């Protein structure tokens, strides 16, 4: 963290990984990302929240995998060669995998230029601009919380 702060002394910037989900591009704060892995076998777990696809074996650890599409009320995932699982690690609750259609690139956003959104029950907390593209920035805590968009 210390070295991150060093660069941000002048202008506050954050790095995001840009992923494609449906037609939209989303940014995930790189500080939360533990790993990005290819699709692997997901074992279904019965009787849990419907947006969970199941659990996977991530190098000897059991990690729950969720469908962010399902959580956001989008059509179900279509798994292709480009599909990836983003492993997000939170101090308190541990690791969780999120299925995305594609991982595009890593971008650095100047926080001053990010348009903040404060809508309730939203999974994003801001919109960043990368060239002429708009990137919706995920609010990680909202994603892992136990609510679902209808």
């Amino acid at each position, binding site marked *: 963290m210390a070295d991150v702060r060093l660069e941000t002394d002048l202008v506050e910037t954050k790095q995001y990984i840009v992923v494609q989900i449906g037609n939209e591009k989303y940014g995930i704060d790189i500080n939360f990302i533990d790993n990005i892995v290819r699709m692997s*076998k997901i*074992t*279904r*777990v*019965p*009787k*849990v*929240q419907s947006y*969970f696809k199941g*659990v*996977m*074996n991530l190098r*000897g*650890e*059991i*990690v*729950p995998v*969720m469908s962010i599409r399902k959580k956001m009320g989008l059509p179900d995932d279509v798994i292709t060669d480009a599909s990836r699982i983003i492993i997000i690690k939170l101090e*308190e*609750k*541990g*690791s*969780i995998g999120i299925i995305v259609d594609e991982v595009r690139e890593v971008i650095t956003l100047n926080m001053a230029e990010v348009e903040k959104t404060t809508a309730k029950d939203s999974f994003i907390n801001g919109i960043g601009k990368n060239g002429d593209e708009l990137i919706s920035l995920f609010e990680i805590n909202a994603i*892992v919380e*136990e609510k679902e968009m209808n």
Partner: protein
Amino acid sequence: MDVSQYLEIFIDESSEHLQSLSDCIMTLEKEPDNKDTINEVFRAAHSLKGMAGTMGFKRMQHLTHDMENVFQEVRSDKISVDSAMIDLLFKCLDALDQYLENVKSSSDEGTEDNEMIIKELNDFIAKANGADVSSAPVVEAPVVAAPAAKVAESTNEVKLQLSDADKDEVAAAKEEGKHVYAITVYVNQECLLKAARAFLVFRAVEGLGQIFANHPSFQDIEDEKFDLDFSFCVASNESLDAIIAAAKDVSEIDDVVGKELTEKEAEVKVETPVPVAAPVEAPAQTASAPAPAAKASTPAQAAAPAQNQKKQTPAKSATNRTIRVDIEKLDNLMNQVSELLIAKNSLVSVSSSENGIGGNQVFRENVESLERITTNLHESVMKVRMVPIESVVNKFPRMIRDLARSLNKKMELYMTGEDTELDRTVVDQIGDPLQHLLRNSADHGLESAEVRRERGKPETGTIFLNAYQEGNNVIIQVGDDGNGIDVEAVKAKAVERGVITQDQADVMTQKEAVNLLFMPSFSMAKQITDISGRGVGLDVVKSNIEALGGDVEVKTKLGEGSTFTVRLPLTLAIIQALLVKVREELYAIALGSITSIEDIPVKDIKYVEAKEVIHLRDTVIPLVRLDRVLDVEPQEEPESLTVVIVKKGDQQAGLVVDDLIGQQEIVIKSLGKYMTGNKLISGATILGDGEVALIIDANTLM
């Protein structure tokens, strides 16, 4: 150096001392004249005071000091132990416990002065001494006198050789008008952390003066490179006695001797450095000169600590061969052994497959030997994690005593098997449920003395806690010889609350009725008391125990008492399991809960209340279709079903599976905190080929 690194030692040792104080006071209550116990109490309080003082916890020190004064009075037969005093002492212990809790959570003792308790303590002493104010100092005197007397007896001497540089420092300090003392500290030979003790001594002395000329060097002391004694010079304005007393306040210090260095000595040694010993020895005796007087005046007190020390020695040496390890390190080790086990399992699956290198004889033999080694390694690691339940149950005698008072009943707790060992994680969590059960026995179980007399039972009720190992389980029984559970009353209450209907109640077996007690919000107390009866009792006990992978059963006989039997798994992390297949999915069922596996023709399935059952060896067993419970795609019914019979206590169920894969050692992994609402799946495991299998908790299917 800073004192915080010794905080952990302080916390551990203080808890030990508090526990031993609690035990001793319990004994004192029964045998108020037991001199050994009084001495033991005194010693523990004294050590506690010393440690608290060194760590700078003044309030704690103050309270223990006043407690010690009371013990001192008891020891010198000025007052006798009565129940009011025992109550007060327990109050002190609770207050000290609170300080310790504060220290644990915030590294600080907090701001509660406990003035009330201190005042009560002092009132006690005042009472003992009548109105005679002049006797107050007597309380203090023996404390100081006793250690002083020991100096006189000891043959310990000051051993310190000064280098030229040191002598210059002596001279310099002298010029400043300070006294310079040579001090040698003798550490108790049972002491486990000599370096820490040395540090505490230095810290205590540093408050009074400046330390130099350590022997051995500071570094060596810190690395524990010294035998049982170490020496140093201190330049100070204080008296020698003050410095010695400060050093002695540190626990596990046997003796401290010292002498003042004169300028002449420093100089003489410059010229003749060889015969150092001679001048050093002589003043050592002078240092102890004032002591005999003290000894003569209080011979009894002087003898007491010596006796104590002797008594303490054999008990302490038992702990000598242990080390403290951070639980995280153990967890880490455990995880790695688990990984190794998974790797081994995958090798086994390669070797048993027919193609490839699996056919090689040598390979197979090696895999077998690897299997043996990993199994042994796993067992060893498991053993390391095992701790006796003692640390949990030794609080109970005190609790029962307090309960007896507040409930106004006579009762006695008998415990066996405190040395029974369980996995650390289980031990940490078993305290609350057991406490609940004991409270339950004390409050609901036992009758009042009058009722007991009428019923021809001894007035003092018996509560027992027996722990023992049975196969892969540890059994803890908690019970009483009280009233037992009135099954009819339970049923009536359940009907009244609408939990069951009258018809259901009529056909209920005794066992089923007793199990009603474990339902949420079902309290049997006719009158809500502080102790229990808020309706958050047995259901919490049950869920806590089940969370640990155990179960609880009750046996009761009206008028004769009841017994709760808690069954806990020895280990949590690795179990033997049966792998089964439901369609294409793999599931693991703990072998411990499986009684048998049966092939049941579909035509043998019977129906009871529209539920499928099978009739097996004279028992009717309900069938559980795993595919339905697990929301798996249905399939066409085969002619015969593979049924895994599982049990929980004396309940049974038959789980219908598609196929059996085999028995395997599996490592239990949690599903994490994100997934909720699933009680049926207790975790997951990774198989040899990297596949994930979910673990079915058969208990939830009964």
